[in-house]
């Protein structure tokens, strides 16, 4: 391999330019690693499992002020069931990615609040319509569905998510355990694999955590207006169009909320639009950053090659091969980039600490550093290649000119 000593002594004569490239690499390293990490974090949010059969679900949402809930439910569900292609309809209070219905603080001892989960409520058939997956416990029976007292029934058997069970009773079997919210009492009879709150990551639960409770309720005064409609994925958008028409005819006094009456895939796409924009922006910054850094290296390396034409000529005249010259510039670039990466790693961690402090970003996993280093070494070698090849093609005869 090339001997580094002469390179180092040559670099010592170009301290400023060397420092500039190293600095640029260091800054690029810090921003690159952290931006990639932020992208990964956002992508993790995008791929959250909602726990419902998204692709075959649509939501119809009505605002009906002063309606009789039971009467409205009867008319609307009958009209929706008559739409061709509809497999089932259920009255619910919310669906993932639609409007949240009710967060409430709960306690295990009626004294100390320990968490704020989202309470889903659903009428008979809602478990099947939503496609909720139970991993343990029992199914709801007819007498589990009760009439709500303002909000929910006073004493209910509920399902909770595995993640929430782990939060409330770490390492224990949650079945049969109880919790309270104000005067409302809940007993866990089933555990779901997944059910995210309607606005996952919205400041409730741990970063996109699934703190949800599902409560069986008889639809009526406190449960009306939101309907989950199940249809085959292929027919879903047509079913939704028809459903919007029929409910307006079936309940002319109610106001159809067009924003919320959509298919769940649409609601999900909408919910994450900003996240996707953020990912796009971060990716744009990374690409622009790598481009600018590469162009900077090309510019400075070209300058050095031109400045040293004569020395290169002399070395060639004294017997150095083209390969020697090429390797010289490649090794020089490797040294500078390595120095930059060294400083950059410290800066990466510093930047990550700042982000953790102000933006609730988790700690950067260590494997980002070697990956970032590899990318930057590659980038350095790629951008120095053209100037180095030009250097290698300097003919030995240059040495004899204008001395």
């Amino acid at each position: 391999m090339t001997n580094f000593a002469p390179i180092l002594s040559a670099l010592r004569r170009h301290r400023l330019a060397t420092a500039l490239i190293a600095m640029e690499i260091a800054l690029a390293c810090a921003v690159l690693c952290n931006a990639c990490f932020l992208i990964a974090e956002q992508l993790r949010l995008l791929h959250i499992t909602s726990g419902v059969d998204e692709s075959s679900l649509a939501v119809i949402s009505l605002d009906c002020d002063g309606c009789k809930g039971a009467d409205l439910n009867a008319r609307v569900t009958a009209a929706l069931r008559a739409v061709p292609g509809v497999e089932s309809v259920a009255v619910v209070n919310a669906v993932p990615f639609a409007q949240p219905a009710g967060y409430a603080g709960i306690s295990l001892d009626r004294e100390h609040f320990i968490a704020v989960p989202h309470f889903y409520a659903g009428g008979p058939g809602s478990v099947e319509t939503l496609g909720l997956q139970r991993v343990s416990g029992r199914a709801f029976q007819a007498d589990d569905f009760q009439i709500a007292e303002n909000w929910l029934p006073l004493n209910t058997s509920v399902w909770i998510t595995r993640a929430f069970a782990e939060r409330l009773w770490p390492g224990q079997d949650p079945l049969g355990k109880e919790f309270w919210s104000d005067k409302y009492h809940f007993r866990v009879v089933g555990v779901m694999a997944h059910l995210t709150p309607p606005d996952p990551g919205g400041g409730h639960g741990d970063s996109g955590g699934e703190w949800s409770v599902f409560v069986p309720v008889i639809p009526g005064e406190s449960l009306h207006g939101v309907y989950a409609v199940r249809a085959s994925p292929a027919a879903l958008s047509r079913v939704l169009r028809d459903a919007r028409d029929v409910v307006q005819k079936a309940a002319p006094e109610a106001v159809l909320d067009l924003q919320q009456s959509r298919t769940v895939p649409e609601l999900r796409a909408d919910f994450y639009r900003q996240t996707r924009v953020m990912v796009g922006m971060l990716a744009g910054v990374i690409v622009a950053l790598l481009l600018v850094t590469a162009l900077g290296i090309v510019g400075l390396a070209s300058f050095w090659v031109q400045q040293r034409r004569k020395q290169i000529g002399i070395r060639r005249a004294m017997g150095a091969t083209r390969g020697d010259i090429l390797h010289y510039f490649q090794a020089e670039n490797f040294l500078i980039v390595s120095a930059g990466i060294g400083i950059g790693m410290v800066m990466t961690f510093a930047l990550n600490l700042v982000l953790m402090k102000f933006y609730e970003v988790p700690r950067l996993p260590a494997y980002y550093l070697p990956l970032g280093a590899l990318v930057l070494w590659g980038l350095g070698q790629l951008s120095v290649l053209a100037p180095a090849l030009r250097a290698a093609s300097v003919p030995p005869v240059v040495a004899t000119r204008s001395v």
Partner: protein
Amino acid sequence: MFGYYLDLAVHSLRRNKVLTALMVLAIAVGIGASMTTLTVVHLLSGDPLPGRSHTIFYPQVDASPKGKDSDEPLDMLDYRSAVDLWSARRADRQALLVQSQVRLNTADAGKPAVMTMMLSATTDFFTMFDVPFRYGGPWSEQDDASRARLAVISDDLNQKLFAGGNSVGRTLRLRDSDVRIVGVLKPWRPSPQFYAVRGGRFAAGDTSDFYARPEDVITPFFTGLDINDGNFQQFTCWHMPARPGHLQDAPCVWVALWVQIKDAAQVAAYRRFVADYAAQQQAIGRFTHAGNTRLRDLMGWLDFNGVLPGNVRLQAWLAVAFLVICLVNMVGLLLAKFLRRSGEIGLRRALGASRAAVFAQYMVESGLIGLIGGAFGWLLTLVGLWLIRQQPVAYADLVRLDVPMFLLTFVAAIGASLLAGMLPAVRACRVVPAWQLKTL
């Protein structure tokens, strides 16, 4: 001399087009990204009531039995505290505010009913916040007291329902009540919607909804409570309300009180008044504690709520970091460019040019790159702002490049490139003439 240096600079930039393009690109991209994000920050963190925000205050007392003196009080007031503080009339102006969703039937316009947000406020709201009217005006204090069925509507709604005409005297149907329009606002778009800011500390940085549009319908406070009873949302409750949506006697906080105190000397007196009120309520057993009353001014309240959305802040930092990298890059390229002309510099120096002259020449060249970069950066900023306007965020319609930010684009571009050019120019003017002349 400047003209001559400009000539030289143009000549030099033309000689190596690729290098010039690289530098202009670096400046333009860096400036475009930073100015886009900084413009958003600038628009979102401005003073919504310039000149009067320091006289506007947000009193808070803590009625929750679960609170402590060491805690922050809840973000809104319970009904009784709010009405007590309001009816004491100890400030120059005071307004009670509550928002609720209401069904708006547009009987004469023949359109289907819609759900809309209604603001219910006492009349000082309009004078205190300097809300501009196109037709008519606010209602009277008498109307507040008598729960008159009146409303003020936004310019938007007036366009939609009455084609922008003078609709004072016409009727709106809100839920099941008819209200008479007494005023139509001019377009009014405070940024943020400051009077509705609350709960920012629980939002985890997701605060873009603070920049929503003001409500289309504004009714007198007590009128609103009457016509939309059962549809009010609590900020939070410490027990379930007996009747959901009816909160006057519920253990909930849901009303905002804003006051204006014009004389700075009176602020301390009002602060004492609020503290005394809480102490008195504790004495009669309605409050469990009275030590955590607050009286923040408008900007203090916005600060406390961290109104600037977290991702806007993050984007701004990223963009500035990106600009710094672009600048470091430009320093390198300028260094290469200037030192490549060492021979030329040597010759000029030998012919009598002073170091200052050489320095000035290269600074002019850097500045020229900055100017061109700034022009491209301005175009990129416009593209960036256009992209933000396409986003589904509440502040999208606010985003535009105002004159100060337009000027800042160029000042920043030229300033940044002069800064970047400084080091290479110093290097260039230190070139020793004799060495260079020998190698010519």
